[in-house]
């Protein structure tokens, strides 16, 4: 209910007001003086038109020069949200790829010899698989060699600065490998919390404690902030894994994949002792991997006896000059040569 006088006219129909006799001149009568020049400052809207794009609000607004832009909300690196890759559609797609593409390719190219997997029988998850790292093929090879009960419920700790620095890379590796971003240069609360949360949610974890691929073929010192820290924090067992021969498939900096024999050795699951700190536990994991590396070039008994005597060759190779370290790796062991078809997966009888 209302009382009105006069019609409700639109803004556009009120042009007559402009000629209010009390107001003096009209627009443009200023003769180029101050007021007109001031009003000509009404320019920004025409900038968009001159630039040939739709004006605001059809197009996104321009940003005032006087207002500092806020830092963009990070969505990549350790901030990339991988939750979608652990939902069932993505898990189904990943399982199909892993079983129907990755495993046949691994068989054809790497012909992995699997050792020590009998030690995983009866092992209750979740489990942390800690392996040495020499090649990009380490991850798909290890995933394809995991026992079935671990294979499709395993996430992979991947370098946030390498695998998650582009959207397409982050999407691809999250989907194909169930990769999660890990900050490898320091302990990052966000990435470590995520890994611990996933372990708590019965996901297994593949992690490379070296923090990156070997630059020269010899392993690097294991970081205590990854597998060892997570094990002490969550109580999950760590299964040391040694991957041998993957560097011959695709070394760091290599341009193509070559066929080569590989050996995947699973060690005895390790648990941190009461009160053991991550640094000491990490040294134990590294020693276990070194023993398996020794086993790959010798035999199980030799490796065991050398380990017992404390004479296991270090993973990092001899402490000599760079050329001698490379020379020591120059002639690959014979079993890396792959001729003809082989049974797969091969097991040490």
């Amino acid at each position: 209910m209302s009382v009105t006088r006069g019609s409700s006219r639109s803004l556009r129909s009120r042009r007559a007001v402009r000629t209010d006799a009390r107001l003096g001149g009209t627009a443009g009568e200023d003769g180029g003086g101050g007021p007109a020049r001031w009003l000509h400052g009404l320019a920004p809207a025409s900038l968009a038109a001159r630039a040939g794009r739709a004006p605001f609000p059809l197009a996104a607004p321009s940003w005032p020069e006087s207002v500092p832009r806020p830092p963009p909300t990070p969505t990549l690196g350790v901030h990339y949200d991988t939750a979608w890759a652990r939902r069932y559609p993505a898990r189904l797609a990943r399982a199909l790829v892993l079983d129907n593409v990755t495993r046949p390719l691994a068989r054809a190219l790497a012909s992995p010899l699997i050792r020590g997997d009998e030690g995983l029988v009866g092992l209750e998850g979740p489990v942390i698989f800690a392996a040495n790292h020499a090649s990009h093929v380490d991850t798909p090879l290890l995933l394809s060699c995991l026992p079935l009960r671990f294979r499709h419920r395993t996430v992979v700790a991947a370098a946030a600065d390498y695998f998650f620095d582009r959207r397409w890379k982050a999407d691809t590796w999250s989907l194909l490998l169930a990769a999660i971003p890990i900050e490898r240069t320091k302990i990052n609360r966000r990435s470590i919390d995520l890994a611990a949360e996933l372990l708590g949610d019965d996901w297994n974890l593949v992690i490379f404690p070296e923090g990156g691929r070997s630059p020269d073929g010899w392993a690097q010192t294991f970081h205590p902030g990854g597998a060892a820290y997570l094990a002490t924090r969550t109580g999950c067992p760590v299964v040391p894994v040694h991957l041998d021969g993957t560097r011959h498939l695709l070394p760091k900096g290599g341009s193509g994949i070559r066929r080569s024999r590989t050996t995947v050795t699973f060690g005895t699951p390790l648990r941190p002792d009461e009160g053991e700190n991550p640094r000491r536990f990490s040294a134990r994991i590294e020693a276990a991997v070194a023993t398996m590396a020794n086993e790959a070039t010798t035999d199980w008994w030799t490796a065991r006896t050398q380990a017992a005597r404390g004479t296991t060759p270090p993973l990092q190779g001899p402490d000599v000059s760079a050329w001698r370290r490379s020379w020591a790796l120059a002639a690959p062991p014979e079993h890396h040569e792959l001729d003809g078809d082989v049974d797969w997966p091969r097991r040490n009888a």
Partner: protein
Amino acid sequence: MSPRPGFVLDVDRSTPPTLFWHGERFSLETLPVGSRVIYAPEPIEPLADPSAAIRAALLDPVGDRDPLPALLFPGMTLTIAFDDISLPLPPMERPDIRQLVIEQVLDLAAAAGVDDVELIVALALHRRMTEPELRHAIGDRIYDAFAPHGLLTQHDAEDPDALVHLGLTDEGEDVEINRRAAESDLLVYVNINLVAMDGGHKSVATGLASYKSLRHHHNPQTMQRSRSFMDQHRSELHSANWRMGRLIADSGVTVFQIETTLNNDTFPGAFQFLQKREWEWKARDRMGYLATSKALDRTPPRYARQIFQSVKSPHRMTSVQAGEVEAVHALTTDHVWAQQGVVVQGQTDILTMGLPYISPYNVNSILNPILVACLGLGYLFNMYRGKPLVREGGVLIMTHPTPWEFNPVHHPSYIDFFEQVLSETTDPVEVADRFEESFATDPWYIHLYRTGHAYHGVHPFYMWYWCAHALQHLGGVVIVGGDPAAVHRLGFRAASTLADALEMAQDVVGPSPTLTHLHAPPILMADVQ
């Protein structure tokens, strides 16, 4: 991320057009390079558990007051007064703060065995609230428990039997307030402090007062000496109310004051773009603006009004304090400023503001021309501390359709004020001297006020007095897009476009003026340095 404080933008060539309210519509206007735009602070975090905070405030009051349970005893008379429909703006989503607070007060009263409890809407000279409005404010549970028994009443400033004269202040001001409230063993007043003006002694001294009492501070002289009435320490309006409040306390009225503050989260989801900075509008905001503005352009004004009047604000409580009036109000004012304060350097020659569809006096009603003037020159102009945003002799440009349209149920005396008084003079002092008495004592207006839902006959005068400081301070007022006849009746100038208005303003303030735009609502208070 903590909410960002208020912001003063310097307009440059990259600045996108600025949102201007235009009643039930809005537009994007391009401001001259070098202009300033004042944006309100972002909504601060609300209380995580309002009910627990209310309970804590009642049990641990501030100032010289015992905890509320200690003030309650069997056989006592308890009166609970609360703010009316004018607060908050827009009306908030359920549950309203008044409901949350009063329910807890009643729980304590019931536990203490208090039987004689009465609720009073502190209307002053405002219109009586309707049942749906009351149910929204205090909830169905309270309404159904008290209203059927006549224990929920609306203050009647014209019922001589329901008023009691408590005496005169040192300045000779009559203090006449609601008898039930004054003669109760305890008066609990429940406030919603939307702006710094609200609350304190003004709650009882104004909300429960009669015309005889109100006229001492609702007059042109008081308003002209209130610089501004949003700043208690420089407000003659508050000085008078404080004198009256202290007299009320000295008369033996025990007031247990409960004040609450809100964040400025003003508009719900679909209208969120209205409280964002334009250069931060996402695609959703831009689509929301385009869809809303295009739809409103095709909607008849009365339906557009209905749409906006149905908007409920997602305001949330940021603080609650209870106890002695002055101690409580000091805390409350700090909370209001924490949410609304924006530091602004220096005054401006031209102040622009887009007027929205709502003011304290047209909830579920029409923003008639007098209320347009009051909203712009009364409320938004006075949203300052220190100095007005616009310099003395400067120009105020407002955008609003200003239709010559009134709600005859709510605003009957406004119609005659507009036709008979403003056609004679727009000088507030002359208006008061020549016309106020006849409107204030008109038996028909008093009848409508007491029995219907009409504002008191003198209320349009008060709206005009609210503009007195601005009218005295400004060199001119221009309304963009307003009905020319209505605008001229108000004594202002009408312009078709903002560019026209800026040219007209330069006739007053000179060439190359400085310009500041008040980007409100959400409500903000300029702390002009």
